[in-house]
């Protein structure tokens, strides 16, 4: 039971970090990134490959993941940030799909659909699995706290204020002399880097990555987490992630209540619950449970973002 909870909380922490990354780019920056899972995957693979093929310590792998994902993020940003919101949605979604296709096909690099296994974890093997999980959870909590702290600082700093100004009306910000594109690229890259770091944490936790772990559904999980928790609010992002994990786990109990469900049906039910959940929240509580504190951010924003 404890182990189960530890596992749940670890996943909540992972989604929390991703939701925080989304908050940076969407909540504060007004740029939608439906390709979250692509940067997450890149981070996971980079860290896995670095630690296995190059034999570097996990910490180095994690840094590499962050840096490479951020670099990729800048490239994607430069190519797409002049696009309207819904066009950006199309392109970022496509990007994640391409990452998945590359991961499935470049067998020499990623081992294709078989995935990479036996990824090292800190102290894994030296302690019991339960202890490892507890240690990892502690690591995750520290990571979440660090990211929240950083983003809160960023939000209060001039960078954060400019970003929000750009989100609300980038023409006004441009007229005020702010280099809009540079800000947007930096924000997008930073967000991608955080996603890459999350990917690395995922890889070393589960010890196995494969293209199938990175479905668009994961993006929906994260979007749901952020919207439920309150877009624009960092604490909300983390709270939302916990809610999403709890919500989706409830389907596990559903399958125990309803007899005769096959595994594929349980999986389908879980995905159904999450997607319908997002639709419901967008409809009934678009502001989330904890709206942005500085000023209420209701969806719709004043301008379609």
């Amino acid at each position, binding site marked *: 039971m404890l182990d189960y909870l530890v596992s749940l909380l670890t996943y909540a922490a992972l989604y929390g970090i991703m939701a925080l990354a989304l908050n940076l780019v969407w909540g504060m920056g007004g740029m939608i990134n439906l390709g979250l899972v692509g940067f997450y995957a890149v981070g996971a693979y980079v860290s896995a490959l670095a630690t296995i093929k190059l034999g570097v310590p996990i910490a180095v792998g994690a840094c590499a993941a962050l840096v490479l994902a951020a670099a990729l993020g800048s490239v994607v940003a430069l190519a797409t940030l002049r696009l309207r919101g819904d066009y950006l949605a199309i392109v970022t979604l*496509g990007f994640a799909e391409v990452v998945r*296709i590359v991961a499935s096909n470049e067998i020499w690099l990623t081992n294709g659909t078989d995935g990479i296994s036996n990824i090292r974890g800190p102290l894994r093997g030296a302690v019991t699995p339960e202890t490892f999980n507890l240690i990892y959870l502690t690591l995750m909590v520290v990571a979440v706290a660090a990211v929240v702290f950083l983003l809160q600082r960023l939000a209060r700093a001039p960078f954060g204020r400019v970003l929000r100004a750009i989100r609300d009306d980038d023409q006004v910000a441009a007229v005020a002399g702010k280099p809009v594109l540079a800000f947007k690229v930096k924000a997008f890259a930073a967000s991608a880097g955080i996603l890459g770091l999350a990917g690395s944490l995922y890889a070393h936790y589960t010890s196995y990555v494969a293209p199938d772990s990175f479905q668009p559904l994961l993006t929906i999980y994260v979007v749901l987490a952020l919207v439920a928790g309150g877009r624009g609010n960092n604490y909300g992002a983390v709270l939302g992630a916990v809610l999403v994990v709890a919500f989706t786990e409830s389907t596990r109990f559903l399958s125990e209540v309803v007899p005769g469900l096959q595994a594929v049906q349980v999986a389908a039910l879980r995905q159904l619950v999450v997607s319908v959940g997002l639709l419901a929240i967008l409809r009934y509580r678009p502001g989330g449970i904890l709206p942005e504190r500085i000023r209420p951010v209701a969806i719709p924003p004043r301008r*379609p973002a």
Partner: protein
Amino acid sequence: MQEIAQLLINGVVSGTILAVPAIGLTAIYAVLRFPNFSIASHATVGAFAGYIANATLALPAPAAVLVGFGAAGLVGVASDQLALRPLRPSGALTSAIASVALMIALENLLRFGFGNDLRGFDLPIMRDWRLGGLRVGPQQLENLGMAIVSMAALFLFLSFTRTGKAMRAVADNPALADVKGIDPEQMARLASFIGMGLAGAGGVLLGLDTSIDPLTGFRAILSIFAAAVVGGLGSIPGAVVGALTVGIAEELSLIAIAPAYRTAVGFGAILIVLTVRPRGLLGERAY
């Protein structure tokens, strides 16, 4: 040289079939003004409906396509009214995000009901025809024919019926259309029915050649979007041109890159078009 000719033929056929769901996507965009990602799942809905018609009622391919159109069209109206219409005031981006959630929901409803197994249509096996060294499959030709017939039917509807003209009017200038007495919600329902219906027909056409499973539509999503974007989102002739372009490009790409990267071609096309000429080849949003 012969290889290229064969690829071109394959490209024209696959492009024409791709045009059917691409028109659906672009028609919905023209009237409702947002990219509806759930087009992928509605294609799958149509594919399964057509499959059921074929497997249980032994209906031939053209009938299966019609059933796919009707089923997907009805689901399209229902899903729009239930899930997306309440969010319209929130803007295009929120609608787009919601449509991704809707796509996943529909896909999993199908998965819940049918599982992940691949299913094939029950059709007479026909040998490929050979014309001067080039191969063409009769089923391919039949699919091509059905795609052309669907597009012709749509063209006639839009050009010559009062309702069709009203839909074009709404796509052209929604504010003026409202003032002149065209009911925007009725047009939204119609656009959803036709758009998603075409997606469903496209799903059947895609599945006739190979097989179907809950991910049939999703696999084609980048190609469908690429076709619509290249042609210009909102332009129906554009979707046809775009689909042919993407279809041929995907086939020709086999010369240089691995088959699995076909859809990456679509993504590349989207990126290039949106960066260089966002309105696409034939699109122009006047109002």
